[in-house]
């Protein structure tokens, strides 16, 4: 039996927001394919609780798998568990959001199921044809995925979130399955990067700093107050990461994180191709750079040619005025 299944991401007992974008992509896919229903599967600790959250969206049925072996994610155990689930309840299309979870799990699962895979889908053209970026987003490829079983990961920023459903979806607990691995592959621990600020990939506003900041101290003293004033997440160019101004998980770009906030402010960023690939879908882009030839100005909605060390503190002052007005 055919069907479209969203593999939800259980992040420390919460549903990742990217999962909802995957649900929306699955609904679009169902429409293109002419299928009425979309299903979802959630695994891990508190899976049944998360299933009831997912059931509020337009899904036909939500499956939950909670057993000690899947309490923590590893690609090895999850691909085994999902394969066993699919033996009992077959689906021919698996959809997930392109996060480190699906990037790790889907290729292994695709091979385990002898299916084909396409990743980072931006647009669904037909059940077997998709648009996706290549070469750090410098190129958009139209690709064809053949075979009866398809695994698809979508770029969350390319799909909206789904509306809530009028009727709650049915929830079906599944398993437990007999899972044993012929080798060692164990989750040891997860160390969350705690921050008071919104998550980079989920924030409505992002302030990013580049090489123009010249030092880690400047990165803190210039970028952080501006981000605080706007309630924004902090990002960085690869050049800033490479220069040691900030950690790698700040990196926006093809090899870092892809973001599409309502407001993206690039401070002291010249606009390397690989950086722009990670932020050019932002609604409004602001660039502050003293080099008026910087490529970032070609895509910025508002460009300010200025010394960032003067302009940013001034900007904080102006923003506070607007806020209090």
């Amino acid at each position, binding site marked *: 039996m055919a069907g479209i299944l969203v593999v939800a991401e259980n*992040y*420390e007992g919460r549903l990742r927001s990217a999962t909802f974008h995957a649900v929306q992509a699955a609904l679009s896919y169902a429409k293109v394919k002419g299928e009425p229903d979309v299903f979802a599967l959630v695994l891990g600790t508190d899976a049944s609780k998360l299933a009831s959250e997912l059931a509020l969206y337009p899904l036909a049925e939500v499956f939950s798998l909670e057993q000690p072996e899947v309490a923590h994610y*590893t*690609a*090895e155990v999850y691909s085994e568990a999902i394969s066993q689930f699919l033996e009992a309840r077959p689906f021919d299309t698996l959809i997930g959001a392109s996060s*480190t*979870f699906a*990037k*790790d*799990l889907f*290729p*292994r699962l*695709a*091979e385990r199921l002898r299916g*084909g*895979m*396409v*990743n*980072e889908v931006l647009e669904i053209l037909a059940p077997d044809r998709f648009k996706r*970026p*290549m*070469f*750090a*987003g*410098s*190129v*958009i*490829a*139209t690709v*064809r995925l*053949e*075979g009866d079983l398809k695994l698809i990961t979508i770029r969350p920023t390319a799909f909206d979130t789904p509306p809530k459903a009028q009727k709650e979806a049915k929830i079906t607990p599944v398993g437990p399955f007999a899972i044993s*691995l012929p*080798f*060692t*592959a*164990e*989750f*040891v*621990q*997860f*160390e969350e*990067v705690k921050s008071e600020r919104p*998550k980079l*990939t989920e924030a409505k506003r992002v302030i990013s700093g580049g090489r123009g900041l010249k030092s880690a101290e400047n990165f803190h003293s210039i970028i952080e107050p501006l981000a605080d004033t706007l309630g924004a997440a902090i990002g960085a160019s690869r050049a800033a990461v490479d220069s040691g101004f900030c950690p790698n*998980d700040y990196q926006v770009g093809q*090899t*870092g994180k892809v973001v599409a906030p*309502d*407001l993206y402010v690039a401070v002291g960023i010249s606009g390397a191709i690989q950086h722009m690939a990670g932020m050019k879908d932002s609604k*409004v*882009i602001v660039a502050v750079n003293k080099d*008026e030839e910087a490529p970032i100005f*070609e895509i*910025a*909605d508002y460009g*300010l040619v200025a010394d960032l060390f003067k*302009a940013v503190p001034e*900007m904080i002052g102006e923003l506070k*005025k607007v806020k209090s007005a």
Partner: protein
Amino acid sequence: MKLLVAVKRVPDPEAKIRVKPDGNSIVTEQLKFVINPFDEIAVEEALRIKEKLGGEVVVLSIGPSEAAEQVRTALAMGADRGVLVKTDGAYADPGIIARALAEVAKQEGFDVLLMGKQAVDTDYGQTCGMLAQILGVPCASFAYKVEVEGESKRLVVVREVDGGLETKLIGMPCIVTADLRLNEPRYASLPGIMKAKKKEIRQISLEELGVEVTPKLRVESLEEPPKRQGGRKVGSVEELVRALHDEAKVI
């Protein structure tokens, strides 16, 4: 320790990529090719493991004949010998690459196979997971730190995952994929480059390996993305903030 490293020949990530007017391929004239940057980090990590625990580092590549240049670069960094599977003329998707790598890995045998988390040309990032499943071995992707426990034949790998760092324990033989912060790759030294000229690169074709060559994933056409229209320059901070508030309405 037997260490295998897979490297891919890719266009210089700093280069501007243009699509040919026919939409079938990219303009390669005057394009510089390099080792995929993440694979280069994997080569460095393999060399560091060898320097600590001894053994051999074998570089694998699958690609056109010219990919011998990238294998040679890895040899100049310090790898011991190379294997190049030539795909000349054939179209290989991640499934085919994974099968070819699996064949070579089986022929060679290994304790740890390393590669980059993704190639910066196709940006697929599928090969590693598929390869791990074909070989029936565990894999730790997006490595930030790798500790090899030589005696117990296990690796403790800290992985860069969304929201933080995850630690995973995997038993050898196993696969590790490198993320950006794992290390800073060394440059090939002049003596290294001289020595590399004498090192062996075994060349075989995809056909000789006997790998199934029907791709599941095919690129039909390429296009350049729509250019984002730039806006305007503003004259002052005050004007900028006013525009964001009154015009763009984002603050």
